[in-house]
């Protein structure tokens, strides 16, 4: 803690990054990572709204066995839109581009990311991809599902597949640029004295995510390019008439798309480690295990893609290998959950909104992770593959995991980003509504999936036994919608009327809490020198460290 004894008059309040330029150009041509994070926050929320509307349409459509207001074709286009917008435009960029962009330079003690202009370019490429996505919607949408399985997507679909491929291709490059930025910053721009094991777990998780991004994303870029070329030139790699193999597309697609689900969940795990530690006022239990489990997930995540293809004609010998490694990759996630639970033990727990989101995350991610066991063990996957069981599983991990982590992180760092506190009671209420609404929506889908209702089914009039579950699910989805809309209201309200906060409203540890909130454009008045361990909450250790701070500084800078 660089607590300079306040003998001389406190320095004049530095202009925060929000006040530093109010023109449109100062926002749209900024190099400041904090402003780019705000730009991402706005665009990512817009896409979350678009995806949410599509989800609402799907849920209302499935209320009645014969459908409510959509035709076959429009229903296919709506669920494809829901898939593509939610995955490529919300889940993958959300936490890294909004919270990661804002916080990593602060947590690492740097003035900005390594390549500020590349960061801005990443936002523009993301917006270009977004506009392409909107154009696809206007021109009639795409009906191949977010997985673009050939030969339907390459030879038989006559919807806007080409434009969607261009949109996904650009969105991939936007996340590659973010990944490059994080890797260079975390490696090279740490403050003096900030060794790897003094880094917050948020930074570890984002490092692992960036490694997955730069190793995985190009593969889907090239695969979608091949589908586009196949549509135009019939080069035959995926079309069986010429001797190509449609399963090859699935291999190449899932080689990226499984690590992509880790790109979505790892940042949320980083947020949860911060929240649990900050609100139990204790260092995370087993810091090294949790840190290395992020890297383990990143590494093993590339070896397990075959569990998406057990019944797709992949040979069973390959299936056995993938099933075995899929069980290994479940272990690091289990380690993280147990370590978080152990962190709460003997802590002083403050049940504020972020903590409720964090506890909700642990519960839902646990169910999501464990239901993954059904799908990675080969026999149970035969029956459950491509049914609503899978839909429930990945919504538990994505919505119960990533979105709870994202909302928890937004609430935790909101005072740091805008210098204003949101009304905590409203926050707690919306967190509880989200938790209840979520469970009511997706728990019935496990049962309807086990009953055998396939994914992406528009009608189920021959199977009336599915309808009670769909009614529960649609009811839950409206509660969930309300739960997600409340934060928009009170967070925006807090921008103007929220209580102003000091540097560290939560009393949390971490370099980002040592600068003013909202932080100045250059993040720190004088560059910090880190002398203390990562999560120091107990009092004696803090005093003892403060006494011989000078020797530690010499030691670091000597």
């Amino acid at each position, binding site marked *: 803690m660089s607590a300079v004894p306040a003998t001389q008059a406190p320095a004049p309040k530095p202009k925060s990054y929000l006040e530093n330029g109010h023109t449109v150009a100062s926002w749209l041509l900024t190099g400041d990572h904090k402003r780019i994070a705000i730009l991402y926050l706005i665009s990512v929320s817009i896409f979350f709204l678009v995806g949410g509307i599509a989800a609402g349409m799907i849920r209302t459509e499935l209320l009645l066995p014969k459908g409510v207001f959509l035709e076959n074709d429009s229903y296919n286009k709506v669920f494809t839109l829901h898939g593509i917008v939610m995955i490529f435009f919300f889940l993958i960029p959300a936490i890294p581009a909004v919270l990661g962009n804002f916080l990593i330079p602060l947590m690492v003690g740097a003035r900005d990311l390594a390549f500020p202009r590349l960061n801005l370019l990443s936002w523009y490429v993301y917006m270009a991809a977004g506009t392409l996505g909107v154009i696809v919607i206007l021109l009639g949408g795409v009906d191949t599902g977010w*997985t673009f399985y050939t030969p339907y997507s390459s030879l038989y679909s006559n919807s806007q597949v080409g434009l969607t491929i261009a949109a996904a291709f650009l969105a991939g490059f936007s996340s590659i640029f973010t990944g490059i930025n994080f890797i260079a910053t975390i490696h090279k721009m740490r403050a003096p004295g900030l060794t790897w094991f003094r880094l917050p777990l948020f930074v570890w998780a984002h490092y692992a995510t960036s490694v997955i991004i730069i190793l995985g994303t190009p593969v889907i870029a090239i695969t979608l390019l091949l589908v586009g070329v196949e549509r135009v030139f019939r080069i035959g790699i995926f079309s069986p008439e010429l001797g190509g193999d449609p399963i090859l597309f699935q291999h190449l697609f899932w080689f990226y798309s499984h690590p992509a689900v880790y790109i979505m969940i790892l940042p949320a795990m980083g947020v949860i480690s911060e929240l649990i530690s900050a609100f139990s006022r204790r260092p995370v239990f087993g810091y090294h295990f949790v840190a290395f489990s992020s890297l383990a997930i990143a590494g093993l995540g590339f070896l397990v893609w075959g569990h998406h293809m057990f*019944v797709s004609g992949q040979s069973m010998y390959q299936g056995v290998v993938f099933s075995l490694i899929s069980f290994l990759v479940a272990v690091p996630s289990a380690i993280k959950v147990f370590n978080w639970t152990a962190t709460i033990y003997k802590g002083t727990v403050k049940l504020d909104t972020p903590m409720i989101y964090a506890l909700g995350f642990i519960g839902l991610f646990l169910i999501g992770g464990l239901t993954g066991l059904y799908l990675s063990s080969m*026999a149970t996957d035969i*029956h459950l593959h491509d049914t609503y069981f899978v839909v429930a599983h990945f919504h538990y991990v994505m919505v119960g995991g990533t979105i709870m982590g994202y909302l928890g992180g937004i609430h935790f760092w909101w005072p740091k980003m805008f210098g204003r506190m949101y009304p905590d009671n409203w926050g707690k209420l919306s967190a509880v509504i989200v938790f209840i609404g979520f469970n009511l929506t997706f728990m019935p889908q496990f049962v309807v999936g086990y009953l055998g209702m396939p994914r992406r089914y528009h009608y189920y009039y*021959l199977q009336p036994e599915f309808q009670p579950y769909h009614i529960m699910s649609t009811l839950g989805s409206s509660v969930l919608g309300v739960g997600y809309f409340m934060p928009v209201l009170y967070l925006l309200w807090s921008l103007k009327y929220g209580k102003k906060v000091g540097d560290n409203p939560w009393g949390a540890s971490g370099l980002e809490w040592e600068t003013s909130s909202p932080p100045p454009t250059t993040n720190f008045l004088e560059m910090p020198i880190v002398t203390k361990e990562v999560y120091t909450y107990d009092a004696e250790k803090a005093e003892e460290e403060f006494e011989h701070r000078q020797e530690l500084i010499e030691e670091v800078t000597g």
Partner: protein
Amino acid sequence: MWRLKFAPDQASTFAEQYDWLFWATTALTIFFTIVVGLLVIFFALRFREGKKVDRSNAHDHHLMLELTWSIIPLIMGLGIFGWASYLFVETRQPPKNALDIYVIGKQWMWHAQHSNGVRENNMLHLPSGTPVRLTMISQDVIHSFFIPAFRMKQDVIPGRYTQMWFTPTKPGVYNLFCTEYCGTQHSEMGGYVVVMEPSEYQEWLANGGDNVPVKPMTMVQKGEKIFKDKACFKCHGDQDIHEGPSLVGIYNQRRVMKDNSVRLADDEYLRQAMYDPYAHILKGYENTMPSYKPKSTDDLEGGLSEEDVLNVIEYIKSLRSSPTAPAPAIPPLATGVPPTEVPN
């Protein structure tokens, strides 16, 4: 209406073994969720701020504890993995004496053919008690043959045969779905699997399956058959080749004749091309095509009757090479209509 169904019926030997494994994994999931869930809530409430409780010497790392809660879940996981892989390998090795049934997946309909030639669409009649092997292929996109009651599913891929086997046990009518997204009417590409007593099945098979007459072949199908019987494809393949122009997508197109006159390839033009091809020869080709004009109306002797010509024209119309055209031939049947008489 509200008879809540929690589990699909068990109608195959694999379904029983499957459910043992399924409920074992569910027990494991519920156990871990409750243990960790209760622990988290209990700790969160017990150690709340302001509560007087012993918080002394709280460790923040403990190697043995970390190893235990990594190794134990791993062992449990490997246990499930072993059990599941054993079952999976069993489902992939059909017995030698299995009854062979052939399935074709087409865009938005299942077509099953029994070995004695009985054909049925979106329905599958099976004898109970005998192992059945399905050899499946798709004619256009990837589909997936899924019978929840048998807990069996297998993707049906164009360009490759895939197989699936099971032994139906309980007679009855069960759902049949397509679970791999295959286009507009993916959700209507289902039907029923009817499991019958073996004797009943033999009798059903003997009198040619459902006495519902097999749908008469459509004009396009007949045209296709003639196109193959007369081996027209030898010269008129997918691409223009030396012997003959490709007929793919030529209907209602402008065709440039040898004498550079331009004629519209309508029905009249096609009929004349079959009956007296040398009247108008396409640019770049010679008079090599034989005429199919029959000697007389009753003795065709190699020629094509008027009705044949119409079928072939219908077939040529359905030939469209551009990928945007959906697969030609049979219009989708009124699928999904439950059979009128359902055997008990």
